[in-house]
C-alpha cells in the first residue's frame, strides 16, 4: 500500500478539516497536509508552488459548496493548469443529490465522488486505488 506524500484538503468547514486530518493520521494516509479554505485560495497557492518549483500534492479531497470559489469552478480553473505530475482529485461532499454526482462524473480529473462522512476504510480504499 502506497503512502501519499502530500494530501490536499480543500474545504471551508473546520470540523471536516479537523476530522479528515485525524482520519488520515490514523490510517497512515500521508506524510504531510496542504489545507485550503476555498477553491480560489487553492488554485492561487498551487500555481505559486508550481512556479517556485515546490512540491505539490498527489491527491486532493475537494468539497463542492464553498464560498468565493466552489468546487466546480475550481475544477474548471484546475483543468487549465499544466502539472508535471498526476494529481488525483476526489470530490468529498455531503450532497447526496444525484445531479451533483452525475456532474462530477463529467470531469476527467475527478476520480471518484465520496459522500461525507468519510471513514478510515474509505481512505484505505483510496490508497489502494492510486
Amino acid at each position: 500500500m502506497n503512502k501519499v506524500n502530500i494530501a490536499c484538503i480543500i474545504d471551508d468547514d473546520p470540523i471536516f478539516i479537523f476530522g479528515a486530518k485525524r482520519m488520515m493520521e490514523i490510517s497512515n494516509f500521508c506524510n504531510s497536509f496542504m489545507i485550503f479554505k476555498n477553491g480560489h485560495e487553492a488554485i492561487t497557492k498551487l500555481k505559486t508552488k508550481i512556479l517556485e518549483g515546490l512540491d505539490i500534492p498527489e491527491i486532493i479531497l475537494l468539497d463542492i459548496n464553498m464560498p468565493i470559489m466552489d468546487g466546480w469552478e475550481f475544477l474548471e480553473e484546475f483543468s487549465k493548469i499544466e502539472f508535471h505530475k498526476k494529481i488525483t482529485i476526489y470530490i468529498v461532499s455531503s450532497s447526496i443529490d444525484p445531479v451533483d454526482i452525475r456532474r462530477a462524473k463529467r470531469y476527467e480529473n475527478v476520480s471518484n465522488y465520496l459522500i461525507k462522512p468519510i471513514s478510515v476504510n474509505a481512505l484505505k480504499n483510496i490508497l489502494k486505488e492510486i
Partner: protein
Amino acid sequence: MINKNESSLFNFIQEHAAIGTWEYDIKLATLQWSSETKKIHDVSPDYKPDVDSGLSFYKAGQDRDTITQLFTDCINKHANFDTELQIVTATGHDKWVRSIGMPIIENNKCIKVQGLFQDIDEKTKITKTLALKEQHLRKTFESALVGMAIIDLKGNWIDINQSLCNTFGYTKEEFKKYSLKELTHPEDIKIGYKSMIDMINGNLEDFEAEKRYIGKNGQTISAIIYTSIIRDDDGKPLHIVAQINDRTQIKKSNSEVVQLLETTEYQNKRLLNFAQIVSHNLRSHYSNLDMLLDILKIDRPESTKNEIFPLIKEAVTHLGETLENLNEVATINLKKDLKTESLNLLDHFNKALSSISALIIESKTTLIVDIDKTLSVKAIPAYLDSILLNFLTNAIRYKKQNEPAKIEIKTETEDNFVILIIKDYGQGIDLKKHSKKLFGMYKTFHKHEESRGLGLFITKNQVEAIGGKIKVESTVNEYTTFYTYLKKHE
C-alpha cells in the same frame, strides 16, 4: 225580398267565405239553416235542425253552456252575440266556428233570432298554434340562463329577459331606464360599434365580442356578447337580438387558477431549495457529527465505554437516515419529466432479492415466486428497484414474531397494467384503524425497532410517479397483500 241576382251573389259569398246563415222563428219554433251552415256542420242538405239539436252540436261543457246562455240572453235581453266556439260536426270532427246572433224585435218583443255561422277552424288553429309558439318562445327567452335583449335600431330596449336583469342586479323597470351605452363600461363603449353599423347596413349578419358592463352596485361585469340582426323578407333590418353571457365568475375562477398555479410553482421552487438545504447543509452537519464520533472512538476509546455513547451514535445514524429519506421524498416530488424505460420485472425482482439474500437466509424466510418472465413494465430502474426492495424488506420485517416469514409473489395483468402481488403471512395491518395513514409520512403500525414509516410513503410516491397505484388487503395476525399496479410495456 232579394232578387235572383242578389240571391246568387249571396250564395257565392256564403260558399267562398265559408259563412252560413241561420234563423230561428220563436212563434213557429223553427230553426232554418242555410246550405253553407249545414255544410259546416257536415250534415246533408235536407237535414232539419231544431234548437235542441242545433245547440247539441256545440262541444259539451264550456262551449255548449256559453252558446246556450248567449242564445237565451239574445231572446230575453235582446243582446247581440258574436263568439268563437268549438262544435263537433256530424262526422265527429272538432271545428272552430264563429257564431253571430241578432234578435229581431217587434213591439219590444223578440220574435226571431237571425245569425251568421262561419267556419274559422283553419284560421283559429293557426292563430292558436302561433300563440302557443309565441308563448314557448317567450318562456324560452324569459327563462334562458343567458342574458338576452331585443333592441331596436336606435338602441332602445324592445324586450329584456330576467337573466339579464339578474346579471346587472336591476329589476326590469329599473333596467329599462338606462340605455345600453349607459350600462357599458366606459372603456369598452367603442367595442362592437363598427360591427353594429355594418350589421345595420347589411354587411354583417352577426358578431361576437368581449365587453364589460357596469352593474347596479357599480360592479364590473365581464361578458361575451353575441349579437345578430333580424331582417324582414326584403332584407330591411328590423331589430337586434343580443345575448350577454356573464363570464365574471369564469374570469374570476380563471385568475384564481392562474394564481394557484403560480403559488404551486413558487412552492415547488421552495421545495427544491429545501431539498438542497437538506442535501447539502443539514447533511454536512450530520456527517461531521458522525465523523467526530468515529474519531472519538479511535482516539479516546475510554470515553466511549459508557451507556451514553452508543445512544449518541445511534441517534446520529438515525439522523443520517432521516435526512436521506427526506431528500428522496423531495426529489421524487420535484421530478417533472420522468423518463421511464421498459424493464423486465423478473430480472429486477431477482436483482432486489440478491441484494437482500443475507437477510433472507438469516431470517429463514420462505419465498414462493411466480412472476411471468415475459412481463415488462414501464418504470425508472432506480424506482422499480427501490419499490421491490421496500416491499420485500417490509414483508420480512413485519413477520409474525415466533415464526419465519413466508412470502408469496405473483403477477397478473389487467388492461394496461401489470399487477405485482406480494402477500406475506405476517403481522398484518389493522386497515380499519390505519388505512388512511398507511402511506403517510412517518407512520408506523408495528412496535418494531426498525420501523421507519417513510418506506411506504416513498414507495407509493415512486409507484405513482411512474403512473401506477397501490392497493392493500390485510387481516391482523394473518396476512398483508400489496397489489402494485405498474404500467405494462406493450
